[in-house]
């Protein structure tokens, strides 16, 4: 549905996107993960026809975004980072205007506007000026304008940025509900978001694709050196040395400023699960095991890992895609 081949975008001497290639199958949700300034927004802007690429090509729903921009744009819905709202229009007027320029037939316009307002839960604000909406409502009106012409492809630039937790959950549900009928590309810098909504992830850093995979494979592969959080009721350095003596453990560090708390971060060899051995060691010594859990990986750690794994030498070849289930 979306095909991106060797896309490169240069601003003067700065290369924002460097030889990016990926494809998205119909009905799939693809997550675009990367830190700020990685090139996510630039890639999305090229896909939506907002700006041309310096090199490479991109097709959306079978139409090249550069040679057939109008055809491609008709089939694309786009939510930019800041929802493009006109502050002096009411929500209804605004959506009606968007429906007009997105070529929704005039006979269907009113019912489409009503339908998307209901779907994105903004119908209670229909008569409110866009400029007076809260951040959450702006974001949802932005989403409403992206889906108003029922596009085949949806491109969402950080759809949950700036929302409160309840709104984030609602938005994710909404996006999941849109999948199937729509092919979705969404960008984010929040890792859990990707595992909750996306079927496949493209990790991009400094304009380059560093990994393409399913969230599960990615976390499994990225887990590499396993870190566990362990808390025992026996304090002191004594417990630390005992934990470090367990086979497979490579490093033990206090997880707390107070050594007496008995909390440790335990790192083990790659791919080796030491939970069983750790708990046995603790229990046989007669201590109480208060907590034992794998530490959640932050995006920073994922990045550190992905970038160091590739190394500067073989950064040319992105990680091979795992066969899709």
């Amino acid at each position, binding site marked *: 549905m979306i095909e991106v081949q060797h896309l490169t*975008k240069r*601003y003067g001497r700065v290369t924002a996107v460097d030889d990016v290639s990926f494809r998205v199958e119909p009905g799939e949700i693809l997550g675009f993960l990367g830190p700020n300034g990685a090139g996510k927004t*630039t890639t999305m*802007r090229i896909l*939506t*026809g*907002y*700006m*041309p690429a310096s090199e490479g090509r991109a097709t959306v729903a079978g139409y090249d975004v550069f040679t057939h921009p*109008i*055809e491609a*744009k*008709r089939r*694309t819905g*786009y939510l*930019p980072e*800041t929802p*493009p*709202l*006109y*502050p*002096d*229009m009411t929500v209804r*007027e605004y959506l009606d*205007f*968007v429906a*007009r*320029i*997105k*070529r929704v037939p005039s006979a269907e316009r009113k019912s489409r506007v009503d339908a998307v307002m209901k779907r994105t839960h903004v119908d209670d604000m229909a008569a409110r000026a866009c400029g007076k909406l809260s951040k959450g409502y702006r974001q949802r009106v932005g989403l409403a*304008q992206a889906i108003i012409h029922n596009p085949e492809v949806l491109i969402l630039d950080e759809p949950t940025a700036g929302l409160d937790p309840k709104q984030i959950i609602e938005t994710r549900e909404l996006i999941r509900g849109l999948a199937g009928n729509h092919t979705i590309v969404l960008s984010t810098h929040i890792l859990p978001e990707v595992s909750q909504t996306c079927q496949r992830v493209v990790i991009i850093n400094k304009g380059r694709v560093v990994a393409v995979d399913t969230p599960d494979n990615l976390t499994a592969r990225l887990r590499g050196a396993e870190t566990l959080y362990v808390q025992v009721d026996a304090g002191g350095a004594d417990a630390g040395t005992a934990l470090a003596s367990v086979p497979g453990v490579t490093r033990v560090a206090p997880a707390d400023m107070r050594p007496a708390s008995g909390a440790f971060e335990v790192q083990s060899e790659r791919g080796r699960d030491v939970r069983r051995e750790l708990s046995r060691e603790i229990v046989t010594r007669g201590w109480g095991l208060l907590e034992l859990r794998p530490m959640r990986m932050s995006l920073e750690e994922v990045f550190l890992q992905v970038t160091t794994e590739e190394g500067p030498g073989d950064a040319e070849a992105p990680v091979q895609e795992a066969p899709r289930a």
Partner: protein
Amino acid sequence: MRNIMAIADRELRSYFSSPIAYIIIGFFLLPFGVFFYLYLTSFVRQSLQMAQFGGAMNINQQVIRYVLQNASVIILFIMPMITMRTYAEEKRSGTIELLLTSPVTDVEIILGKFFGALGLYLAMLSVTLPYMGILFYYGNPEWRPLVAAYLGLVLMGGAFVSLGLLVSSTTNNQIVAGIVSFVVFLLLWIVGWFADTAGPTIGPITSWLSITEHFDDFSKGIIDTKHVLYYLSLITFGLFLTAKSVDTERWRG
């Protein structure tokens, strides 16, 4: 065509849903009313004197012409306020991203904005029609020269709008757009002042460039194709460069 209408419609609504349209029209009507009053009273006084000697005066040449010539200068001051926000505001607020990613061509966007701004200008001009109505009620001016003069005003306004759009498309700051367009319009006006003092070669060129000079014949009731052509080519030139400017912006990102 549908897209142009949609965009022009939105532009026009946004002028009227904010105070801008009312401020602009009020700002135009105030000096216009003053000029109208001054020229009309002096005309009445003079025509009374003339009547004693059995002469007659022409209201088209003595009132309408001067009032509209002065109006063309007020218009020059007001136009930047109409056009400064067209592109600059959309670029600042990011709504340009909606337009550029919609199935609409650049030319449709530009024409939509052009007609939207022109719509406000026409609304502003239409408010002066009651003044002309007063003249028709109490006197009997000729209507044909009046139509010619208004045609001239519309063409001149179109030229201002098109150049204002161009300036607005180069910046994302309304104030900058407003000031630069004002300076450009001002230069296009005062360049005509050199016509008398400059030599025989430069003189005609400067007077030919002046945007208000070309309105002179219209105000007298003359529709000369060379002036129509001047305004139409200025409009096309401005819109063409705006299209180029939008395209350049797109490539630079």
